[in-house]
């Protein structure tokens, strides 16, 4: 079902993670991703995993929900693992035909898979606990200095928030159209790849038409409310850092510094 795609979906809540300032969440998530690539030894991974699990725990997002977010990428993850196992030189662990799996390969594969899953989980957590609007608000504020370099920060943020806002709407719409065509005997699931591609026409045509209609309506609605870009625009919600952000920052700085130190020490 299309509904299972949870990427970019927000689960409302009132936990301390939900209440954090979006700027702090963005900064910490970015730092987490960087540090994830810096990390090398098992101990570093354990530290980052602990950081991640603490955050998941605090956000009260169910593990099953996170798993559903990771699932669409399982194929890519398995492929990465397989290629790493096969193409890493070292002591052979398993040999058949012309393929050799090495101990080093297995180790690298495990590392890569954990890294990818931890990466996805970290970013999913950000979108699960932050509403798209708040998220873009935060992003816009963080990127504000770039306005001096004539980067259209506001326009980019607005485009992003509209895109995020309409993902669930379009998914819902697609679900409805699929059902309506199925009710007329459309078959999206069986047949050759060509037949299946052709079967998508009854879905895609109405979906595009409705996307254009929505875009049109939205543009008119925005103009009716005198939208004219970011210049001189103030925000209804003023972002403010609170003590939660301070605690989160301290906790993260300690963990992340530890990982970097371990890397420098070569452990």
């Amino acid at each position, binding site marked *: 079902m299309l*509904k299972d795609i949870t990427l970019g979906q927000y*689960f*409302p809540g009132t936990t301390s993670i939900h209440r954090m300032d979006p700027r702090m969440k963005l900064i910490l998530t970015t730092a987490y991703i960087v540090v994830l690539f810096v990390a090398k030894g098992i101990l570093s991974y354990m530290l980052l995993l602990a950081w991640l699990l603490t955050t998941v725990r605090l956000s009260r997002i*169910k593990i*099953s*929900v996170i798993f559903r977010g990771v699932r669409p990428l399982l194929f890519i993850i398995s492929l990465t693992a397989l290629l790493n196992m096969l193409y890493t030189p070292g002591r052979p662990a398993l040999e058949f035909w012309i393929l050799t799996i090495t101990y080093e390969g297995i180790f690298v594969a495990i590392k890569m898979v954990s890294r990818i899953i931890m990466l996805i989980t970290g970013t999913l957590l950000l979108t699960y606990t932050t509403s798209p609007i708040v998220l873009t608000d935060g992003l816009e504020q963080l990127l504000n200095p770039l306005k001096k370099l004539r980067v259209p920060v506001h326009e980019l943020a607005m485009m992003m928030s509209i895109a995020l806002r309409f993902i669930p709407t379009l998914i819902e719409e697609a679900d*409805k*159209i699929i*059902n*309506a*065509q*199925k*009710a*007329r*005997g*459309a*078959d999206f699931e069986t047949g050759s790849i060509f037949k299946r591609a052709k079967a998508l*026409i*009854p879905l895609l*045509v*109405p979906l595009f*038409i*409705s996307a254009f209609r929505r875009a049109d309506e939205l543009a008119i609605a925005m103009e009716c409310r005198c939208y004219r870009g970011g210049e001189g625009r103030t925000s209804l919600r003023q972002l403010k850092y609170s003590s939660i952000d301070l605690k989160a920052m301290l906790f993260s700085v300690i963990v992340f510094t530890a990982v970097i130190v371990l890397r420098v020490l070569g452990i």
Partner: protein
Amino acid sequence: MSAIIKTENLHHVYGAGTPFERMALNNVNIEIERGEFIGLIGHTGSGKSTLIQHLNGLLKPSHGRVLFNGVDIWENIKRVREIRFKVGLVFQYPEHQLFEDTVYKDIAFGPSNMGFTKSEIDERVREAAEFVGITDEQLSKSPFELSGGQKRRAAIAGVIAMRPEVLILDEPTAGLDPAGREEILSRIRGYHEKLNTTVILVTHSMEEIAKNASRIIVMEDAKVRMTGTAKDIFSHADELESMGLAVPQITQVFLRLRNMGLDVDPSVYTIDQAEREIMEVRRKYDA
């Protein structure tokens, strides 16, 4: 006589295991006889659309069974697609699903999925178009050149062309002007009378249902609250009102009259009945 459609302890839960979990059907047991014209009514969110999507196998029950001609439609997974041809479902705003470059081809989509020959398809398309009042000239147009009401009727024809044994329509008059509404309803009525097809009409307008349905099913909060003829149902006007369903205006007038102490029957729902009732009352008071 055995029911053409029957549900047994039907339950449906959306988003099981997520924070959005919601019970949309709670122990629904309905029975529909061949040739009936059923009105399914309920407030927005009461579960009407969810229920009808079970009747043609688009949704799978979380618990309970759906029987078509006495056979569980999920008994053989491979046959579920056939059920969709026998139980034709017209979704809400069906004009949003039009996709072909001519109205003719769009109406032909269903029958061609059923695997008919060109001439059989042609016969079905023309018959369906006639039922909904789409002219030959309109058949060769693009669906997007039609007016709102015409588009909607073309989309309904797309389901009728499959010659389903049961025709279900989800709020077919939503968003149309009164003339467009009456046009659609009279077309559906005509179709029902001519072929004696079983029809289930979903709406939240009591007036629409009172005029058309031979039996009414009232839903509230994922459950079936009442079933019966229009007369039965409207005699529970207070209960209906507490469910947020307005009884027809003429019924409201008669309820007021009765509350004022006049001895009238409050389950009146057409102007004709009202006239007869008033004459009756006058005669009583004159005597």
